[in-house]
């Protein structure tokens, strides 16, 4: 396997200790690559949500994370051997309902969908393969009258 300078892989058994280990792995990537603060935070939120689903619901025995660092973006790849599951097809929570009715489920995946530039999923070689692209750009400022 060819190893690239801007790429890191992390293989893990998806048990409850895995979430902390994944967080540590991402912390070291953020530090070593000098990934900006906001993108670093987004990376961890996305990984936390996806890995939690893998750990608690997929029945997977093995998982792998790939982080690819580019000038303007970071790509996170997730691979697991659990049940076939496409998070993009998960039902979104109804955000128009108040706290009384608001479903507790689906919030994590909603966060991933909203934070990502691009998400790709395929089930191949009997593995779930998910790719999430995150921009490194700083958050766009909300414009106000003073800007004009």
């Amino acid at each position, binding site marked *: 396997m060819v190893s690239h300078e801007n790429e890191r892989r992390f293989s893990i058994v998806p048990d409850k200790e895995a979430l902390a280990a994944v967080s540590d792995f991402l912390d070291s990537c953020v530090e070593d690559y000098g990934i900006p603060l906001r993108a670093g935070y987004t990376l961890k939120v996305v990984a936390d949500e996806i890995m939690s689903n893998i750990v608690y619901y997929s029945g997977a025995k093995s998982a792998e994370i790939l982080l690819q660092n580019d000038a303007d973006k970071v790509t996170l790849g997730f691979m697991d051997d659990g049940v076939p599951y496409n998070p993009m097809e998960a039902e979104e929570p109804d955000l128009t309902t108040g706290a009384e009715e608001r479903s507790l489920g689906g919030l994590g995946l909603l*966060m991933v969908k909203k*934070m990502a530039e691009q998400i790709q999923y395929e089930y191949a070689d009997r593995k779930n393969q998910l790719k999430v692209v995150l921009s490194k750009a700083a958050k766009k400022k909300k414009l106000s009258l003073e800007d004009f």
Partner: protein
Amino acid sequence: MNVEKVCNGNEMTLCVNGRLDTTTAPSLETAVMEVVAGCESLVLDLAGLEYISSAGLRVILKTQKIMMSKGGMKVQHVNETIMEIFEITGFTDILTII
């Protein structure tokens, strides 16, 4: 993650410091359950909150539901990144953020 409790008459302030994720969210839930019977209203102070995932959001939502049947809940000192999460998930509509 740690939770500091500050009692002001019938209002309890919980200062949440550190990360609210799958591992630490249950501790916040425990802290809430410990104080909720003895207070009429609740303030969540998030000045020290560094990170929140959906597990943390669920505890906050659960707390909001409990406090809605009493004197209500306010959330204060939300930093920009956490506020963005609240906006994405629609929590800005549900929570009273001051």
